[in-house]
């Protein structure tokens, strides 16, 4: 399926958010995820089913003021 991941269109063979992270080799307890503007808790990723052209945001900690 085609998704918009962090603003970029990508084709990924995944049907759940957890699978998408796995395929793209995202890992770590420090990741935060949202789909179509709504937070998806890390414990909900495995059960979260993705749809064509979902907008996925994957964030991680960085320096801030």
């Amino acid at each position, binding site marked *: 399926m085609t998704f918009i991941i*962090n603003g970029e269109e990508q084709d990924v063979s995944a049907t759940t958010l957890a699978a998408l992270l796995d395929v793209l080799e995202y890992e770590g307890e420090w990741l*935060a995820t*949202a789909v179509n503007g709504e*937070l998806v808790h890390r414990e909900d990723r495995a059960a979260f089913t993705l749809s064509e052209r979902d907008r996925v945001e994957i964030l991680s*900690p960085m*320096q*801030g*003021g």
Partner: protein
Amino acid sequence: MLTLYDVTVQSRLLLGTARYPSPAILAEAVRRSKTEIVTVSLRRETAGGKAGGAFFEMIRALGVRVLPNTAGCHSVREAVLTAKMARDVFRTDWIKLEVIAHHDTLQPDVFGLVEAARILTADGFQVFPYTTDDLVVAEKLLEAGCCVLMPWCAPIGSAMGPVNPMALRSFRAQFPDVPLIVDAGIGRPSHAAAVMELGYDAVLLNTAVANAGDPATMAEAFALALDAGRLAYAAGPIEPRDMAVPSTPVIGKAVFA
């Protein structure tokens, strides 16, 4: 001691973690500042990226409390979602709430700020709002559930120091029981001391330390300045006046003429 929501800390300095020459220098600056609270952010991670993880582990190793921010958010929706994502990562209800109106001044959108504060407070967040020194906005933020206020003293990163001391003084007088943190605009330790002399409870800064020639030493200088300013406030500074007043008593002065 300073109590922010349900947390009591010794240090009155909140330190940003951005723009340091290296992670090692950041860590040393945190140590010498004696801060117990650092601000952090969230940004898009690249596929397979480990940058966020390395930073996350470094901050965790410092043993300080984390105050995530919503820096760069220009809408209520963005700020609220970013806050929720930050809570998911950092496991804290604290959020430094920024809703920015203008790219050039980085002035807060105070209308959006109040709205976002109301939404987040209702969702269990403990909000630290980056705001202006407007008293009415501050009242609205308190009504929205904020228990801390963070007025700027000058634009973010400007290093100008308190450009409107009268406004900061009014702010302090209007909210005597609310923890007040000056956030943004501090450039030098003397600026930090000045706002502490006005009775502010703490200072949040970043660039003034991170971009100093020697960030770690500057961090220590700020810690000393904050202590001095707080001590001076507690001691009751004298008020300035227009006319001279002799400090040496004139009574009993010899007359030689």
